[in-house]
């Protein structure tokens, strides 16, 4: 069983996000890139499948700032191959990334076919598309998203896939392979790998590189403005030490019969 995991970087939203001088985009220089959280879960799901059924896991990412470290981390976690698509760190929308990947994957050496392509079911910067389903459509593969568990039949022809609904209910689906799955969460939290092992991977392993074809224009949207949210309301902010604020909150709760 061979699995491909697609990973991408997104801004760390714990940091302050700034709008670029054009007023229409994020100031990418000011952000700290981190791996998209759902993609990290997709990697974990792939590694759990490899632990159980054997086979290989390949990770592939479009070139962007700090992505090398993510790929080496994946190698340190037990991934067999890590491939970077050289784009000169061009900023791609989700629809553009899906279009690019649909052309890159079949052309990458010794990569396809795989039984499963796993990636996050969405990312925090998806605006004009969602990579996983858009890629599935372009590759003419079946797709299921918001996935929280995968089991594969011994012959690799079919998977049982769990999809999350509301209130903790899940749907169980049968999916013919090969397929693209959009992972919401792996059955276990993404595994930890010590920094020393990542450093060792940086010394002993190499990232493969494939060249990206010319960008295909696919976006139908025009961004008119990027703004901080217009707040419809805002909390009354309480000031002071934790003890002072706690005392004020206790008073508020008490006045409402809650404490």
């Amino acid at each position, binding site marked *: 069983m061979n699995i491909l995991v697609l990973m991408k970087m997104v801004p760390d939203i714990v940091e302050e996000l700034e709008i670029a001088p054009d007023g229409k985009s994020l100031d990418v220089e000011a952000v700290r890139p981190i791996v998209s959280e759902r993609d990290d879960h997709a990697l974990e799901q792939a590694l759990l499948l490899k632990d159980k059924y054997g086979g290989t896991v390949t990770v592939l990412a479009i070139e962007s700032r700090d992505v090398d470290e993510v790929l080496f981390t994946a190698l340190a976690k037990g991934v067999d191959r890590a491939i970077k698509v050289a784009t000169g760190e061009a900023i791609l929308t989700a629809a553009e990334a899906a279009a690019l990947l649909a052309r890159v994957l079949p052309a990458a050496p010794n990569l396809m076919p795989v039984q499963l392509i796993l990636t996050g079911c969405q990312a*925090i910067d998806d605006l004009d598309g969602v990579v996983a389903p858009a890629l599935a459509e372009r590759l003419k593969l079946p797709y299921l998203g918001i996935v929280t568990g995968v089991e594969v039949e011994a012959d690799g022809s079919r998977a049982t896939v769990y999809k999350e609904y509301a209130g903790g209910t899940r749907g169980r689906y*049968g999916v013919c392979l090969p397929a693209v799955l959009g992972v919401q969460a792996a059955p276990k939290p993404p595994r930890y790998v010590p920094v020393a092992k990542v450093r060792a991977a940086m010394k002993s392993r190499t990232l493969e590189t494939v060249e990206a074809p010319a960008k295909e224009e696919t976006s139908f949207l025009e961004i008119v403005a990027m703004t901080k949210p217009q707040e419809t309301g805002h909390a009354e902010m309480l000031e002071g030490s934790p003890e002072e604020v706690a005392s004020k909150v206790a008073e508020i709760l008490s006045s409402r019969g*809650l404490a």
Partner: protein
Amino acid sequence: MAGNIWVLAEHWRGRLSDLTPELLTLGRELAGGLGGGTKLEAVLLGHGAQGLAAALAADGVLSVDHAALAEPNPEASCIALAALIEQRKPQAILVPLSNVAADLIGLLPARLKIALVNFCRDVRVVDGRLEARCVLYGGKLEATVTVASAPAVIGVLPGSRPASAAPSAAPPVTEVPVELPGDLRVRFEAYVDPEPGDVDVTKQDVLVSVGRGIQTQDNISLAEELAEALGGAVSASRPVIDQGWLPLTRQVGKSGATVKPKLYLAAGISGAPEHVEGMKGAALIVAVNTDPQAPIFSVAHYGYAGDVLEFLPALTAAVKARKA
């Protein structure tokens, strides 16, 4: 641009979703704003679901009935809806951003090579064109975009408009036949309902809810001590559940429970749209987060830009002191 405004009438396990009547209000407004006889049509994909049509406040309902559409199936619904769009060429189709319709939102525009506008909080008609305001980066920024091509798929978040009232007369229903391949590659098998949890978070008057800011599993005890002092329970946002620190039954938000307690104390929760959806109806929301820009503060009544690890024990002590 010609073509009607469509709303995907989302339903799940026999019930119309709460989002559908909101989208009908929005769709009505857009159809009116576009003028020129633009109609609002609801699209009902299902099997034996036509009984839901009477509750849809639309000018008409396009009903597609097929056994493969009995339960959510992204492959079947994408094929059916794509065929319908190609035949009838709407200007835009509003789709609720829920776990039921989310896969379709990603597939449909890719299949038809048409525009997608995702995570919309608002859509308006500006100079005869649709303009959407979309939530990005976990609610930290918003993009205003114009949709220059039709048809467009527009994924709409909860809370865009108040829900429409059921119509006094049922709208006319047009049955549209659809052909689906017999060998669908994605097949629904069964629902797996969660094991009953130790605590039903939807029935609590007080929830102390923990997010990423709680940092470690051990620190959850700080929230448990406060919940105990207040006679409530501990719930959580997605990152805490994904870490396995609390069971899925404690999750509040899109994939978890929708709660309306008397007090919701959000401890170290940033307030991503998926979480806010599940708790914005609480009577009193108190939020504590180290980031003063966190979106949770725009839904909270009271906020404190501070560290939950210091605040939680301080509040537990203050509550106990008041009771003593």
